[in-house]
């Protein structure tokens, strides 16, 4: 293959990783932005999404597409419900003290992981893609499903953006993010906002995992990489900036994809790590973050 088509292929691969990563990282960033806590269990909510997707697609009779659509609805819902339960039972009782939440979510992540190991097992299992047609470019054929992942992720991200900027609940979330006490003094039940945001964050991670499950596989240890990469994206993009998070996800996803295809996957990871280090040193608030608040 010539360089041009090869670059095109690498870009497509990069866009797929970027799409999945953006969804996951926006979930993590939203939780940190509004609740000012780091959810170390975020990767395990991702894993939960993939595992539930496997279960749903296998239990659902009929066409694989039907099972997949069901998974796309039920997996994020399941992850969100687990997250909301964890928020009520654990985080709220800790009064969202940042250090305590880090420790608690490490524990929560461990429980989710071991729970998946006990119920789902140690195997990596494939989830059937809802469709399998290939798109024929002049130089190569490419998975139609992967292209659909890019489009769907973009739609969900647009939805999140619209939710935050165009709806009442988004306004209430932004007010709570800025000043929880004053928000309460204007009748906002900030406990409920927190529960909702924590659920939404987990749901986004699970959505990303459902999308990626037919490409990679579902496995109880699959949450590690998404967690680390999401942290990288949130650091680079700047906390509390949706736009920054998406751009950083594109940056990391594309670097990873292009460098990974042309050179070695490891080099892509090294470059992403280097980028994080550079941002931390020279622009600790992130590329799109504000210096204060």
């Amino acid at each position, binding site marked *: 293959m010539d360089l041009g088509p090869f670059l095109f292929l690498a870009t497509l691969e990069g866009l797929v990783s970027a799409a999945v990563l953006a969804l996951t990282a926006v979930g993590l960033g939203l939780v940190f932005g509004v609740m000012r806590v780091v959810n170390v269990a975020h990767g395990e909510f991702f894993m939960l999404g993939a595992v539930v997707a496997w279960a749903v697609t296998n239990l659902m009779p009929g066409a694989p597409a039907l099972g997949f659509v069901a998974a796309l609805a039920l997996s994020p819902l399941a992850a969100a419900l687990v997250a909301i339960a964890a928020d009520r039972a654990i985080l709220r009782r800790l009064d969202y003290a940042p250090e305590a939440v880090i420790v608690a979510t490490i524990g929560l992540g461990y429980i989710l992981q071991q729970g998946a190991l006990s119920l789902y097992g140690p195997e990596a299992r494939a989830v059937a893609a809802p469709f399998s047609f290939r798109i024929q470019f002049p130089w190569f054929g490419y998975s139609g499903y992967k292209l659909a992942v890019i489009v769907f992720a973009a739609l969900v991200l647009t939805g999140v953006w619209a939710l935050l900027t165009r709806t009442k609940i988004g306004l209430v979330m932004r007010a709570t993010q800025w*000043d929880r006490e004053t928000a309460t*003094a*204007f009748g906002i039940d900030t406990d409920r906002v927190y529960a909702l945001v924590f659920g939404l964050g987990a749901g986004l991670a699970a959505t990303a995992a459902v999308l990626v499950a037919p490409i990679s596989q579902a496995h109880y240890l699959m949450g590690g990489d998404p967690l680390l990469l999401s942290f990288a994206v949130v650091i680079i993009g700047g906390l509390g900036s949706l736009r920054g998070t998406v751009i950083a996800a594109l940056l990391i996803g594309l670097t990873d994809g292009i460098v990974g295809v042309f050179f070695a996957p490891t080099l892509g990871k090294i470059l992403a790590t280097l980028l994080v280090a550079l941002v931390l040193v020279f622009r600790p608030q992130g590329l799109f973050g504000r210096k204060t608040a």
Partner: protein
Amino acid sequence: MSLTVTNLHGGYGAVAVLHGIGFTVAPGEVLCLMGRNGAGKSTTLKAIMGLVRATSGEIRLDATRLDTLPAHDVPRAGVAWVPQGRRLFAELTVAENLEIGLLTRQSPPEVRERALELFPRLRERLTQASGTLSGGEQQMLAIARALCTEPRVLLLDEPTEGLQPSMIALIHDTVVRLKATGVATVLVEQRVDAALTVADRIAFVDRGRIAATLPAAGLDRSAAEFREWVGV
């Protein structure tokens, strides 16, 4: 509606700040809270809003107990707070800050229009981020946001702090106008002249207690009470 605070105790965690605050404000009345820095004026207002838990005592809006309500139900009952330092949602626009006020009690858009009539300057800045307003405009917005909740009781914490004289006059003018609509107002104010012009009664706060409550008409600016409790 009248606000009645009785023997209120409370503070921050283990730190007790309020040691038996008590006062009443009737509809159409302005009660001024005065006292030294750290006396507990702001804490009193926060306790009324449910943001600082009352450890004992009672807060009532007419017959309704406020101190047993969850904090987010206090504004829904008709009490609005203009916090010290304004505490706007700085990243939100002027319109969005007002919208938060309207959502509190699901008030119709006319309520916002009435608030904007008091402060026409805000109307020109509806799409501006509230953090970029001038100090005076921010204070107008803090009051307008509170009025968007259609309060029966208005708690104003040093609304003229750091403002120039013309702006101070405008704010006090607004307080007098609202008084005429039957709102019960608690105003924290450090300026003796202002307190004497705006207030019906003055309650002196000293180390978490009400040292004295006196009609403003019976005081002049050289009264011993101001020296003793406010230190001016």
